[in-house]
C-alpha cells in the first residue's frame, strides 16, 4: 500500500537562496545588552566611582584614604572576618552531624529534620535576629527571665548584643547551606564504597574517617565557605545586633557611609575588600569542590543502606531537635507570642492576647501593607525577568548559537561573588545619577534583585537545558519548524517544571531581600524587609513580629506549589543556592 498523496501544496517555500543572517540574532543582541546593563555596568561604576572625587569626578585616591583612614573602619573589616569565621564554624557544628544523620543513618524521623531545616532556610536572617532579641535580650529576654525564675538570680547570663550572640544568630540561619551541600555529597557515597573498606578490614569508625568523611569533605568545606561569605555579606542581623552592641562590621559601616550625606565614593572604596574576599573564596570553593569531590559527586549512587546507630539514634535525634529548637521552635513561639501580644514583655497571659498588631500592620500603618505588596511585586518581576533571561543565555551557550556564549554564561553567574550591599552600591553609582535617576524607583529595585538572583536562575536554567537532547529541536527544524517553533512547541513545554522551580527559588528569597534593598529603596518603594528593619529600630517588636509572620505565611502556598511540582526537597537541593 502506498499513500497516494498529492504533493503537499502548502509546503514550506522551496529552498531559498542560502542566507547567513538569522533573525533570532536580534534576540541574542538584546540579551547581551541587558546583561551589560545588569551586571557589567554596575560593577564598572563601582570601581570607577571609588577613584572619583565626589563633586568634580576627577581621579583621586582620597576615597581610599578616607575609607581606611580610621582605626575603627579597619576594626570593622577585621570584625567581619572574625564574625564570618565564627559563624561558619558554628554552622558547621549544627549542620554536619545533622546532614550525616539524615543522609546516612537510621536516625528517627529524618523527614521531620529536613522539614525543620527547610523552615530555618526560609526564615529571613533578620527575622531570626529579632526573635533572638526577644529570647536573649539582656534582662527582658525570655531565656534570661526563665533563668532568673529558675535560679532566683538577679540577672540572666544571656546577652544577644554581643559578638558571640551575633555569630550564633547568623550561624543558626545559615547552617542550611552546609546541610544542603553535605547531604548532597553523602547521598552520592554508595554503600559499596564503604563495604569495600569494610571487607579490607576497616571498622565502621575507620571507614567513616578514611572513606566517607573525605568524600564529603570538599562539600563540607564548600558549605563552610558559603556560610562565611553569607555572614560577612549580611546586613540585617549585624545592624540589629552589632550596632546596639557598639561594634561595627563591614556592612554596617557601609550603611553609615551611605547615611546623610551619601558618600557613595567612599562606600565604593570601602566595599573593595568585601568584594575581593568574596571573589577569592568563591574561587577557592570552586577549586575544592571540583577537585577531590568530583569522583564522589558524579559517581552513580549505587545501593545505599543506612548505618545503624543503635541506641545512639535517639541521641542523634535529640541533637537534631536541639538545633531545631534554637533555629525554629523557640524563635517562632516567641515571635507568635509577640505578634499576638499587647506588650510582648507581659508574657502569655490571656488578657495580653490581641489582634491589634495585625490590624495595625495591615490596615492602619501608612506603608506596611504596601511594603508587603511591593516585596511580592518586585520579587515576581525580577524572578520572571531572571528566569527568562537566564534561560535565553543558557540556551545560547549550550547550543553554541553565538561565538563566546560562555562569556554570557559567566556574566550570569558573576553576581554570585558580589555581596548584596556591594551590588547595591554599584547600582547606586551607575543608575542614581541624573542620566537615569533611578534611585528610589521600583525599577532599580527590580533590576538589582534580578541581578542578585541571576546566578540561581542560570544554574537551574543551564542544568535544565543540558538535560534536553538537542536532537529534540533538530527534529522540529528538519520537519520545517523554525528555531522559535522549537522553543515554543518543544523546549518550553519540556522545561515547564524546571522554569517554575527556578522562578520559585528566586521569588522566595527575593521577597525577603534586605541587604541590597536598604540602599536603593525610596519613600514609595519600601519593601517588607526594609519595613521590618525600620520597626526594629523603633523597637516595635509586636508589630514587627506580626509583619514578619505575615511574610512567612504568604510564602507557604508558594512552598506548597514548589513541593507539588518539583518534589519535597526542591529548596534543599544544591542548585537552590
Amino acid at each position: 500500500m502506498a499513500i497516494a498523496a498529492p504533493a503537499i501544496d502548502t509546503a514550506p517555500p522551496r529552498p531559498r537562496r542560502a542566507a547567513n543572517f538569522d533573525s533570532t540574532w536580534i534576540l541574542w543582541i538584546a540579551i547581551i545588552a541587558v546583561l551589560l546593563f545588569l551586571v557589567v555596568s554596575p560593577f564598572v561604576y563601582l570601581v570607577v566611582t571609588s577613584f572619583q572625587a565626589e563633586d568634580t569626578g576627577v581621579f583621586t585616591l582620597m576615597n581610599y584614604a578616607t575609607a581606611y583612614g580610621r582605626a575603627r573602619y579597619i576594626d570593622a573589616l577585621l570584625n567581619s572576618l572574625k564574625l564570618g569565621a565564627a559563624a561558619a564554624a558554628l554552622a558547621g557544628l549544627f549542620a554536619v552531624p545533622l546532614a550525616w544523620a539524615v543522609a546516612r543513618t537510621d536516625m528517627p524521623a529524618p523527614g521531620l529534620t529536613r522539614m525543620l531545616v527547610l523552615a530555618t532556610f526560609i526564615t529571613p536572617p533578620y527575622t531570626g535576629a529579632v526573635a533572638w532579641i526577644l529570647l536573649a535580650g539582656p534582662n527582658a529576654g525570655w531565656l534570661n527571665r526563665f533563668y532568673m525564675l529558675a535560679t532566683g538570680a538577679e540577672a540572666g547570663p544571656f546577652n544577644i548584643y554581643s559578638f558571640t550572640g551575633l555569630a550564633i544568630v547568623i550561624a543558626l540561619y545559615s547552617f542550611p547551606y552546609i546541610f544542603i551541600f553535605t547531604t548532597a555529597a553523602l547521598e552520592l557515597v554508595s554503600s559499596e564504597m564503604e563495604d569495600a573498606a569494610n571487607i579490607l578490614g576497616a571498622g565502621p569508625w575507620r571507614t567513616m574517617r578514611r572513606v566517607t568523611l573525605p568524600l564529603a569533605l570538599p562539600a563540607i568545606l564548600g558549605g563552610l565557605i558559603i556560610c562565611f561569605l553569607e555572614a560577612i555579606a549580611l546586613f540585617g542581623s549585624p545592624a540589629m545586633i552589632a550596632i546596639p552592641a557598639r561594634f561595627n562590621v563591614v556592612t554596617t559601616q557601609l550603611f553609615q557611609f551611605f547615611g546623610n550625606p551619601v558618600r557613595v565614593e567612599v562606600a565604593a572604596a570601602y566595599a573593595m575588600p568585601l568584594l575581593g574576599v568574596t571573589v577569592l573564596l568563591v574561587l577557592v570553593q570552586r577549586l575544592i569542590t571540583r577537585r577531590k569531590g568530583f569522583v564522589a559527586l558524579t559517581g552513580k549512587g549505587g545501593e545505599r543502606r543506612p548505618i545503624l546507630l543503635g541506641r545512639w539514634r535517639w541521641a542523634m535525634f535529640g541533637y537534631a531537635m536541639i538545633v531545631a529548637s534554637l533555629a525554629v521552635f523557640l524563635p517562632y513561639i516567641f515571635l507568635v507570642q509577640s505578634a499576638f501580644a499587647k506588650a510582648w514583655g507581659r508574657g502569655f497571659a490571656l488578657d495580653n492576647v490581641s489582634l491589634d498588631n495585625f490590624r495595625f500592620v495591615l490596615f492602619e500603618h501608612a506603608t506596611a501593607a504596601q511594603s508587603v505588596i511591593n516585596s511580592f511585586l518586585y520579587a515576581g518581576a525580577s524572578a520572571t525577568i531572571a528566569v527568562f533571561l537566564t534561560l535565553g543565555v543558557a540556551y545560547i551557550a549550550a547550543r553554541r548559537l553565538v561565538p563566546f556564549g560562555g562569556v554570557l554564561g559567566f556574566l550570569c553567574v558573576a553576581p554570585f561573588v558580589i555581596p548584596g550591599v556591594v551590588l547595591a552600591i554599584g547600582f547606586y553609582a551607575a543608575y542614581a545619577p541624573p542620566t537615569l535617576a533611578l534611585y528610589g524607583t521600583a525599577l532599580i529595585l527590580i533590576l538589582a534583585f534580578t541581578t542578585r538572583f541571576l546566578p540561581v536562575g542560570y544554574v537551574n536554567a543551564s542544568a535544565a537545558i543540558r538535560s534536553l537532547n538537542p536532537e529534540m529541536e533538530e527534529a522540529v527544524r528538519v520537519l520545517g519548524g523554525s528555531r522559535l517553533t522549537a522553543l515554543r512547541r518543544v523546549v518550553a513545554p519540556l522545561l515547564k517544571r524546571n522554569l517554575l522551580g527556578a522562578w520559585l527559588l528566586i521569588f522566595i528569597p527575593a521577597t525577603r531581600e534586605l541587604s541590597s534593598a536598604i540602599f536603593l529603596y525610596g519613600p514609595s518603594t519600601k519593601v517588607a524587609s526594609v519595613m521590618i528593619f525600620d520597626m526594629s529600630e523603633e523597637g516595635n517588636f509586636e508589630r514587627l513580629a506580626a509583619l514578619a509572620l505575615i511574610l512567612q505565611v504568604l510564602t507557604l502556598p508558594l512552598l506548597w506549589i514548589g513541593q507539588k511540582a518539583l518534589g519535597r526537597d526542591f529548596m534543599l537541593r544544591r542548585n537552590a543556592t
Partner: protein
Amino acid sequence: MSKLVLKNVAKRYGAFEAVSDFSLELTPGEFVSLLGPSGCGKTTTLRMIAGFMPPSAGTIVMDGREISSPSGVVPPEHRRMSMIFQSYAIWPNMTVGENVGFGLQVRKLSRAEIDRRVDKILDVVQMRNLKGRYPAELSGGQQQRVALARAIVVEPEVLLLDEPLSNLDANLREEMRFEIRRLHDEFKITTVYVTHDQSEAMVTSDRIVVMNKGKIEQIDAPHVLYSRPRSRFVAGFIGRTNFLEGERQGSDVRFEGFTAVAGTLEGANGGGKLLYSLRPQAIGLSMQKTGGVGLAVEAEIADRSYLGEYWDYQVRPLGAAKALRVSTGPNAVFEVGSRVWLEIDPAAMVRVE
C-alpha cells in the same frame, strides 16, 4: 537529473579536517549509506546535508539548487528533508499522533487532512492503535517506528537517518533493517543512511560510501564492495579477510608459502610489493590435494574455533610464519596440528592499495 549532489564538500575545525573533499551524487529514489568507524566524518556529512552546519568548502545542491556552501546555508526548516535521529528525538510532551502530525501541522494542512495522513502512515508502521499514547509508554522499537512515521509522513525530498538502530537490541535491529528497506521500497524516498554497522548498510542500501578519517575510501554497491574492495581499509572493514603481501619476481609473484603466476593475478603488472585481499571462504580446505583450478598449498591447522554456522580455522602454509583464516562449513572438521591442503584461486585474490 541528480536529486542531491555533494561537490568537494569539506568540514574543518581549526586544523582538524573532519570531512575532506567529499563528492557524491544521488539519483532520485536512491538509498545510499555512509559507512565507517566512529569519528570517520559520516555524521558530520549528514548534518551538513541536513543544514545544521555549513561546509568549510564545497557545495551541496538539491534539485539543481544550491542549498549549502561556505557562504551560506538554507536553514534545515526550509530544506524539505526529514531526519531520523540516533536518540529518535520523539517529543515526550506530545502523543504519538501529535508527534507524527507535527510536520503536517507546520505545513498548515487542514485538521482532517492531517488526521487522515497520520492514520495512514501509522497503519503502515503498525502503530495505529497507539496513536494516543505518550512516548514514555512506548518500547524502544515502537519509538523507532514513530520516528520513521514522523519522518516519512511529510513526504520529504530527502530522508536522512543517523544511526537509527544503534539503541535497539540485536533482534529488533535486524527486524528494523528490513522494515526501513521495506518503507523505502514503498515510498521511494531518496535516502542517506549513516551507520557503523556493515550488515545494516548491506541490507538497506543501493550503494555504500565507505569512509575513513574524513575521506571516502570507496563508493559501490554492497556486493561489489565485498567482492572488489579497492583499499586495505575497505577490505578489512567490510567482512573478514586475509591480507597477502606478495613480491613480483620475473613472471611470478611470490607470497609467503606459495607462488602465483603474475598473469593470473589482478593488477600484478607492476613490480615491487603487491597487497592482495583473500576472503576466508574463498579458500578451499581438504585433507587431500584436489585437482581444482586453484593453487594447491600444503599447510597445517594452527588453531580453530567453532561458531555454529561455520568453522573458523587458522591455517599455516608450510614454511610460512603467518597463518591464514579459512572458513568452512560446520561439517568440515579438521584437528589442530593435522596436515591439510589449501586451494587458492588467484582470481579470487583482490588487489588492494
